[in-house]
């Protein structure tokens, strides 16, 4: 591959994620320098850019949807990115945070903020600044069209590298047995 004249714009975000997929992305180690010959980062936890640029090429989403702000950010990424990639178990099927789906939301908030031992005069936060949690955690493909999925909790650095380099080379991404895992 020869570096393109115009760099590919890549935005990333973590919704109801643990940032572990971003860490696994950084686990490509010094290959990150090679990657930066081909891409530039747009909005990402790794940059200071606050909004996704309207001409973004690739959006990488970690985490499922657990609150209203997650949904806004996800829709914003979908609107501005040509290709959207769901990365990690959470974005793909809700992940371990979706284990809260069988509990009523009010019960969870009550227990965490109100009735837990040691919470003197505890109350459920009610400032409009705070995004309201959704009743259930959802995978991102239930809200927007997703173009590619990289499974894993987190996917290995090699799996992320494989998908990105396949895409940059114009190939359909494919993980073999060794890079394919959900855990």
């Amino acid at each position, binding site marked *: 591959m020869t570096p393109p004249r115009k760099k590919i714009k890549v935005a990333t975000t973590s919704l109801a994620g643990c940032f572990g997929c971003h860490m696994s992305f950084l686990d490509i180690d010094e290959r990150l320098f090679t990657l930066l010959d081909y891409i530039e980062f747009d909005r990402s936890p790794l940059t200071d850019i606050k909004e996704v640029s309207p001409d973004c090429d690739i959006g990488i989403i970690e985490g499922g949807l657990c609150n209203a702000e997650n949904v806004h950010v996800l829709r914003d990424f979908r609107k501005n990115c040509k290709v959207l990639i769901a990365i990690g*178990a959470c974005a*793909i*099927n809700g992940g*371990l945070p979706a284990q809260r*789906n069988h509990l009523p939301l009010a019960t969870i908030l009550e227990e965490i903020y109100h009735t837990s031992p040691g919470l003197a005069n505890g109350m459920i936060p009610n400032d409009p600044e705070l995004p309201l949690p959704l009743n259930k955690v959802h995978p991102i493909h239930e809200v927007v069209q997703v173009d590619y999925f990289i499974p894993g909790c987190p996917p290995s650095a090699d799996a992320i590298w494989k998908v990105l380099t396949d895409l940059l080379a114009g190939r359909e991404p494919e993980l073999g047995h060794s890079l394919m895992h*959900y*855990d």
Partner: protein
Amino acid sequence: MSQTFTIDGRIIPFAEGQTILQAATAAGVFIPHLCYHPEFKPHGSCKLCTVKVSGRHAASCTMRAVAGMVVESDTEEINGERLALTQMLFVEGNHFCPSCEVSGNCQLQATAYHLGMMSPHYDHFFPNRAVDASHPDFLLDFNRCILCSLCVRASRDVDGKNVFALSGRGIATHLIVNAKSGQLGDTNFTPADKAAQVCPVGVILRKRKGFAVPIGERTYDRKPIAEIIEAGRESLT
């Protein structure tokens, strides 16, 4: 074994009365399956073993081999259908592999890897069935059950205990425990039971035994399911 048929052009010998799946595995040809187990009568619920015989779809676990039949199995069309079926199983349950003790040793997961499943595609059901931890040595997570009925068959036909059954209709069908209380702790289920060893997913779990095998050394870490089954069966013929 003088009679033969073909799968994807490969000649498969078979004995009278053998199913397509039995003859294929004996010949070292992997056909994905979840509810079929060589020691039990076929069940025909998972439909993963579907093949195309003379242009028609058939479950290879229940269809007897016939001399000269032409079977298509490892094709884009059939594998595409198997992938869709696997995705349906994933969204119908809570298959959170990252915290499942059976991850790496799970036949459903290994089959999904084999079929290249990158996402579950469909909307999730997020079922809510209570865990049964009443037994001193086992716990049951019903949200991972794929209704293969292997535990039902093992307990009834091998152990002679009838501990498990499938109950309900349609999407409400679920695994139950045959005790007045519905609790495993009120049955004579023991670790030595065949039913304790046949679950292809993570429903029937031994207590205090999770995460014992290091990552990299679990069954399907080392080899894909197709290679394991093909190698295992070839030695039997």
